């Protein structure tokens, strides 16, 4: 059994010489052992994030389809329902999220160009700004929700609005309004948590042009949260 | 061989639709048999023929064979397309009832079927139809999903609570055909049955005039016993004392029944009458108010018979 060349496989001993240059992991503290290079690790993470975003789109997609079908069944009720949403507040929130997306892009740029800490300040500032706008979004959402709560414009069996423009089945509109904006709101809150984590690690100086995967991935996530709102806003606030 | 296989798999065909469905069924069955013999035969043949006889037995190196692979891609595709068009065709032909079909309203609720005739009369548990006439069924459910299935006619249609669905048949053989519910609907699902009574035109007209001939001439007690099954009472009420969805009928006559609201009633003629016609007023302690009302769906004679029957269950 010594015909090594008959074998279909060749094993290269990873600990041999001549591989030193390719092994950046000897140097970088965040390199995981099962990846050969930092690039491979980064690419894998990126694929993972894109796949996760695909599942998010399908998750919201189910709600969008449900919304579309129920809207065609109860068109009048949906139109009447949307008059109770303040499009100005919705537009303000759209602005908040759009600006926060821009600051997130800046943060990713700063992280990926951060050499020896020269962009650390820009990175932290932009992350803080993103967090701030996200907070602003949630504050506006809070005022909108409490207004609906006050009027009894609530989902399902909690719907108790009896104003002059009340239409049968209006509760279905508010069921979807709260489910969709609620699920989106949870995603904003989750994003705020993730950004806070990025800020803490940025202050520790963990991110540099060699390693900024978390900033990049959470940036992608944040753009998706923004994108979903871009669809939610006209769908809920601007239907006629 | 063909007839033997047909009888092995399919109940005897009793409607026009059944014939065309069965032809396709048999075609697919033969396809199945041929392909199974091919798969099993080759597998077993190769296992024997090419059994390993020595450790260094030479094997062929065949990576692929375009013609062969095309064959078993295209041939099954053609066969599948034939089956698709055949099935599509018979489905579309069978889709819409012919003009002038007799219309019957079918109502499903947990766990009985009732049938409304053109003259306004209602029958529970039995669908009387004349032979050799197209019959269109317009169906809806009063609670959850049910499905109307007549194996002998090869028809099936879900019955929905929010809209009407329909199916139709043209019975060709006089006889009784069972209608099992085939969409799961809870506790009584397995016993939610009715019967299609296919009869001659004269017998059908006689039924419209005089009511169910099976019930005629029976003493009330006997009639009550048949109604107990036919009207669906047996789904929830036992006659041997075991607790079902509703109270057992055994030995309840002259007993005191305690209601969920605390009242108490003597089980007598009026109590039973109200329980059948307005069941929501008479919910016995320990049970849920799930019984449907039989108001307008049961004749006076049938009520009397049921009362007599309950009286007899000592």
């Amino acid at each position, binding site marked *: 059994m010594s015909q090594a060349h008959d*074998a279909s496989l060749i094993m290269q001993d990873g600990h041999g010489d001549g591989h030193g240059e390719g092994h950046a992991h000897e140097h970088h503290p965040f390199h995981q052992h099962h990846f050969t290079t930092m690039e491979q690790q980064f690419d894998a993470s990126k694929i993972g994030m894109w796949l996760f975003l695909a599942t998010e789109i399908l998750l919201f997609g189910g709600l969008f389809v449900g919304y579309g*079908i129920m809207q065609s069944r109860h068109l009048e009720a949906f139109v009447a329902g949307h008059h109770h949403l303040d499009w100005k507040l919705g537009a303000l929130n759209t602005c908040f999220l759009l600006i926060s997306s821009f600051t997130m892009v800046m943060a990713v740029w700063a992280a990926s160009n951060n050499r020896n800490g020269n962009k650390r300040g820009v990175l932290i500032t932009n992350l803080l700004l993103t967090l701030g706008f996200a907070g602003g979004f949630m504050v506006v959402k809070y005022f909108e929700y409490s207004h609906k709560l006050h009027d009894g414009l609530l989902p399902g069996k909690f719907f108790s609005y009896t104003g002059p423009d009340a239409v049968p089945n209006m509760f279905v509109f508010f069921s979807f309004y709260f489910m969709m904006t609620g699920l989106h709101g949870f995603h904003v809150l989750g994003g705020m948590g993730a950004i806070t984590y990025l800020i803490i690690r940025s202050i520790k100086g963990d991110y540099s042009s060699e390693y900024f995967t978390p900033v990049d991935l959470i940036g992608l996530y944040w753009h998706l949260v923004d994108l979903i709102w871009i669809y939610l806003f006209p769908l809920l606030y601007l239907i006629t | 061989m063909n007839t033997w296989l047909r009888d092995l*798999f399919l109940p005897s065909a009793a409607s026009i639709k059944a014939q065309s469905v069965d032809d*396709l069924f048999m075609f697919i069955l033969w*396809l199945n048999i041929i*392909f199974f013999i091919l798969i099993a035969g080759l*597998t077993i043949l190769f296992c024997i023929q090419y059994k390993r006889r020595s450790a260094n037995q030479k094997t062929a190196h065949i990576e692929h064979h375009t013609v062969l692979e095309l064959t078993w891609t295209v041939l099954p595709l053609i066969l599948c397309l034939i089956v698709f068009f055949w*099935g599509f065709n018979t489905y579309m032909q069978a889709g819409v009832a012919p003009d002038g079909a007799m219309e019957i309203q079918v109502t499903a609720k947990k766990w009985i079927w009732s049938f409304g005739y053109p003259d306004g009369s209602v029958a529970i548990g039995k669908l009387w139809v004349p032979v050799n006439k197209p019959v269109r069924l317009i169906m809806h459910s009063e609670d959850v999903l049910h499905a109307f299935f007549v194996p002998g006619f090869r028809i099936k249609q879900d019955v929905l609570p929010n809209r009407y669905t329909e199916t139709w048949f043209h019975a060709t053989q006089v006889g009784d055909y069972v209608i099992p519910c085939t969409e*799961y609907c809870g506790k009584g699902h397995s*016993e939610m049955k009715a019967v299609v009574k296919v009869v001659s035109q004269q017998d059908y007209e006689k039924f419209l005039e005089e009511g169910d001939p099976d019930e005629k001439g029976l003493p009330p007690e006997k009639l009550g016993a048949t109604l107990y099954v036919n009207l669906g009472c047996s789904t929830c009420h036992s006659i041997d004392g075991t607790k079902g969805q509703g109270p057992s009928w055994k030995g309840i006559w002259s007993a005191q029944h305690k209601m969920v609201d605390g009242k108490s009633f003597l089980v007598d003629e009026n109590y039973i009458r109200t329980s059948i016609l307005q069941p929501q007023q008479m919910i016995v302690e320990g049970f849920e108010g799930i019984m449907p009302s039989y108001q307008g769906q049961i004749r006076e004679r049938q009520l009397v018979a049921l009362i007599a029957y309950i009286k007899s269950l000592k």
Partner: protein
Amino acid sequence: MADVIASPAVHTGDHGHHADYLSDPQHKGIWSWMTTVDHKRLGVMYLWAVLLAFLVGGVFALLVRLELMNPGEDFMTAEQYNQAFTLHGAIMVFLFIIPSIPAALGNFVMPLMLGAKDVAFPRLNLASFWVYVAGAVMAVTSIVVGGVDTGWTFYTPYSTSTGGAVTMMTLSVFVLGFSSIFTGINFIATVHKLRAPGMGWFQLPLFVWGIYATAIIQVLATPVLGITMVLLIMERAFNIGIFDAQIGGDPVLFQHFFWFYSHPAVYIMILPGMAIISEIIPTFSRRTIFGYRLIALSSVAIALIGFLVWGHHMFTSGQSALAASIFSFLTFLVAIPSGIKIFNWIATMYKASISLNTPMLYATSFLLLFGIGGLTGIFLGALSVDIHLHDTYFVVAHFHYVMMGGTVIAFLGGLHYWWPKMFGRMYNETVARIACALVFIGFNMTFLTQFFMGSQGMPRRYYTYLDQFQPLHQFSTFGSWVLGAGLLIAAVNLMGALRGPKNAPDNPWGGTTLEWQTQSPPITHNFAGQPAIEHNPYDYRYFKVPSDAV
């Protein structure tokens, strides 16, 4: 003799024996298992978990069959029976079959086949396991606190109106979905980024192709199930008005949502089974696989077309004739790739050197049983015939031939194939063959009969039936005992082997893929060095079968 293997180059240098992943002195004790990020250990933990689920689901199956011995109430009331078949279905689908091959065997074998040290996201893998456990605990809780009687399909409006622990069960399905998504994401990234040098897409072992196609479906379909379960819970809790007809909802919409996931889920179940067969047949035939590319690409084709056929579960639901026709047409299209695979597997056995060891016995059983399962699907795809057969025992028999005759048989074959690799121990071959024969016979006794009952008009989900069906029902129940006995013997045989000495050679079957080129059981980091690929898998022209292979 364990050191004499195909490619001595694997064991470069002096390391005669490394500590394997089971007995690694650096990872000892329960806690090291519970927090492990080693794909092999996670695969083993998943294996015990899904086998436990299989046992519970199987006990419910035996109870269901026992109740059906006679018409009428035997030892279960109608309500208890409804709960029993619901739990059998829900546990088998969500806790057993879906995670069985990908999460247990896939986790263990796939990174080895790729020549990788681990999956791309080892910590996500660990999270996936514990999310699965959490979901399983919730499912069991729902049984204890009130039972579920909706059927595993949770059709509305029954599921929104019935009592019991439906909310808890649907929540558990939602949670289990996350576990499935995490596994899917992990596997896709692994296949893309962690292949050994020289391993292109068409050098991947076919098992990896199958698991890859499965992962795509897991990622794309499961979120829709998740949102469907959320909507169902919302409808139950708050009457949001989407599925409940009484408040303006549409119960059929639920069926569309549900089958949009659950039909692709059928392929989540069968593709990994096919993937295992594509490994076993060439190995035990000592021949290259016939039509590698067609088999690989047909998995992807099945995964994609599988998304477009969900409506064939609803031919009697009142959907439009046009929709029904399109769904029927696409259903026939999705049948073709499966047929191609069967013929390619058979062609692989032509001019081969076949040894009928236990894994190969299961693989040949698979060809026959899955063949029947697939062929009987043609009846159900044909519109007018399906109207007659829908929701009868014919459907029950058909999908058991696919799910059990296909997936479970392949799973058993895979267990017997990789058991020596996973645990380093050989099981008793004779006992394993007897168990396989019993499973085969018992399975056919149980389910072949159900085709006849179904087309004669026996509806599914009935605890009682017309007297005419009694002989066939009884025969079916006897069959379930033979089947149960076969499975029990197989389990005792496999578990019993674990108490024996570590006697398995590194490559007991003469397999060509990378997992056979490391030690049995593998070392903690899988390979002593970085493996590289020179030839296509299953190419026995360049492969020297070790002398200690069977």
